[in-house]
């Protein structure tokens, strides 16, 4: 497992996100209102919308293109939609955010 330092929490707007370019493709890094951070592939399972530009609320991100809701803990679209996004591990050390470059497999 490879952990990469991403930067600090304050670089991500709360209830929103940023994206990271990686060898595994673009990864969205999302921060919710409780300062929890999630990392998922930056491609909506619907038509590839950039999830890093979505609204984040609780465990959900709302895709900016057609408003699919993606559960960030499950890596799945919320019914009635269906589809998956890859999840990646995040570790917080103080303000510092670390991204694990290996997909979380269930």
């Amino acid at each position, binding site marked *: 497992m490879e952990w*990469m330092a*991403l*930067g600090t929490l304050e*670089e*991500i*707007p*709360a*209830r*929103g996100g*940023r*994206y*990271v*370019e*990686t*060898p595994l493709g*673009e990864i969205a*890094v999302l921060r*919710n*209102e409780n300062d929890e951070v999630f990392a998922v592939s930056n491609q909506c399972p619907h*038509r*590839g*919308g*950039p999830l890093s*530009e*979505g*609204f*984040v*609320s*609780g465990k*959900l991100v*709302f895709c*900016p*293109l*057609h*408003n699919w809701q993606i559960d960030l803990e499950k890596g799945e679209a919320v019914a*009635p*939609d269906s589809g998956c996004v890859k999840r990646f591990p995040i570790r917080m050390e103080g303000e510092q955010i670390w*991204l694990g*470059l290996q997909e979380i497999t269930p």
Partner: protein
Amino acid sequence: MHTTVSQNPRLVVVGNGMAGIRAVEELLKMAPDLYDISVFGAEPHPNYNRILLTPVLAGEMALEETILNPLEWYAEHGIQLFTGNPVTRIDRVKRLVISADGKATHYDRLLLATGAAAAMAPVPGNHLPGVMSYRDMADVEALTRSSALGGQAVVIGGGLLGLEVAHGLRARGMEVTVIHRRAWPLDKQLDQRGGVLLQKAMEARGVRFLLGKETAEILGSAHVTGLRFSDGTEIPADVLVMTIGIKPRIELAQAAGLQCETGILVNDTLQTYDPRIYAVGECVQHRGQTYGLVAPLFEQAKVAANHLAEYGRMRYQGSVTSTKLKVTGIELFSAGNFMGGEDCEEVTLLDGSQGVYKKVILQENKVVGGLLYGDTSIGPWLFQLMRDGTDVSAFRDNIVFGETHLGDAGHSGENQAARLPDNAEICGCNGVAKGSIVKAIREQGLFTLDDVRKCTKASASCGSCTGLVEQLLASTLGGFYDSTPKKKALCGCTELSHQEVRDAIVKEKLLSVRQVYAYLEWRHPAGCATCRPAVNYYVRTAWPMEGLDDPQSRFINERAHANIQKDGTYSVIPRIYGGVTSPAELKRIAEVAERHHVPMVKFTGGQRLDLLGVKKEDLPKIWAELDMPSGHAYGKALRTVKSCVGSEFCRFGVQDSTRLAIELEKNLERMWAPHKVKLAASGCPRNCAESTIKDMGIIGVDSGWEIYVGGNGGMKVRAADLLCKVKTHEEVLEMAKAFLQMYREDAQYLERTAPWVERIGLEKIKATIVDDANTRKTLAERMDFALSQEKDPWKEAVSGRLDIHAAPMRRIPA
């Protein structure tokens, strides 16, 4: 409260019920500060929804859920409310009302809305304890208490109220018998065939019927024990409910010497014979007619309020009514003359096994009445045909099947959805076909637009198919679907409506989305994609200076200040005022496009240049090199002011439309709005800039400018309405600012001007900004102030004051 000396005339309302309070609400909408208002109510409650008594009795709903206007509402509007305090006398000479507590209250205008009382059969024993009426909350409370003891309930009168109370008492576990004079129940709404179907359905739910029976005497000494019919037979009863009809409450008016017959007589302005006294509701008799349903009373309330507000424009001309029965699981609709008669023709459909019966009465090829049982889906359409007096000869024989079967011969518009084939795509955004929506509604028991959005995604994105989805709900659910529910919540995060949220933001001075969510106890502390942009907009319009803009509550377009495309790239549309550019500017744009390999350069429909396919990272660079202001083509904001050549060059032109367009655009740029706003200015009535399908369109005429509003050229075309004519550019500018500011402050988020104008009415807009120079001026000033707080977002981003997070947070190389 009463001791303060007030300048305003006093309006006293007698009757704190549905019609009276509706009139007050309508009045407050039009003239919030015209009167000091006092309301007297005989009942101890604030105004509640009488229609919902049956669900309360049946235990399907709580009493509190029926309250239409909580006590705070009265307080908020400075209304003095006296509950449990009926007015006992009116002194018309001194202009006083005397209430039960002995107090005398002066009035300048009086509104009588005393409603009606249950009629009691004039038979011996009708005053015994246990004989009840079914009219108000006290009755429901008494019935609930009695039903707790179980036993036999007898309902005299098998009309709408009788059947509802029977249903309610049955749901409370009593044995219920309905006594009716005629051979079938609900004979005022149903013919015999329909009546028999209904009777069977009610019997299946455990309600018994005794038909063709005349009550002769109510038995009992200390309490009702039973009743005897004119044929000598008797039945036992522990509770007896009398629902044989209603009687307008006119005693007060009569004693004051006002002309009454069955009800209080009023003219088309709802004025009684005393010009200071108005009357609305069930207590009223208008053109010989009394009403017992809310729809006509609400129409009356609107007209009365219009006159109380001194607008003096509307007339009430009587109402055509239709009825529905609110007994869970029984669908019934009836309107007009459903029995037919001489020179009438009938078209009927009966499916006994499915319990479906439909009958339409035609006279000279027009619908004059109808009755639908078991499947009421065509009810609204039928009622519309009836009210409009549409000639139905082209499809008369198929009329009972509804519009679906009409092909193109019928009628256009009203209900296209029902006529579409199952594979027709309803929601273009999410690719949802009609068949799947209807299926979901049926199989998953969906009831509301929100349900449909959640389960099928139809209408969950751009919302332009909302109308079609609502039609499908209406046609699939029939009578159950009520498109104007009590109150529509802003979204799933709250119970409050758009307006309530907005009011709270103004009243409590809530200055950020977070504050709003905390103060109004949002269910999800970070909201959702629906409420965040809406609430952010409401905060910004209410508090242009102090309000905190929350970029994370803006749609991506308004956060990146560019329009996101399907592949995640963006389009850049710089502002080109009025569509007038120069060779130098064009060269610069061309060079920027070339340098950055912009994949496509295109003219937009609004006469601007669009650079498409730009990566987010490149946006700030491109903005810097263009050195032009943002065109706001991505926002719920002022988009473009389209122009034609106008009098400077065009041989027909009578006014300088290009100059006006430029001035308008310069004056209004950076304006955020509930939705996108498009303007146009044409130099003569040939209207080359298509001003009549714009949110606001200006057309030059010899003597000046005509101003049109509420047009739309998108999915649902709407021709704009003429607002007014003015002479000078300055007047156009002021009017434009006033109109758009009114729209900004009043429309719901995501409501375009077209539906907004239709919702609030052109008359109101005219009254506010055309007729009233003061309001026009203050609105325009508020617009100027709001715009003075806005900066050009591209310049802000270029200078580093605004971070749109264009670059990735990090690049991790392979």
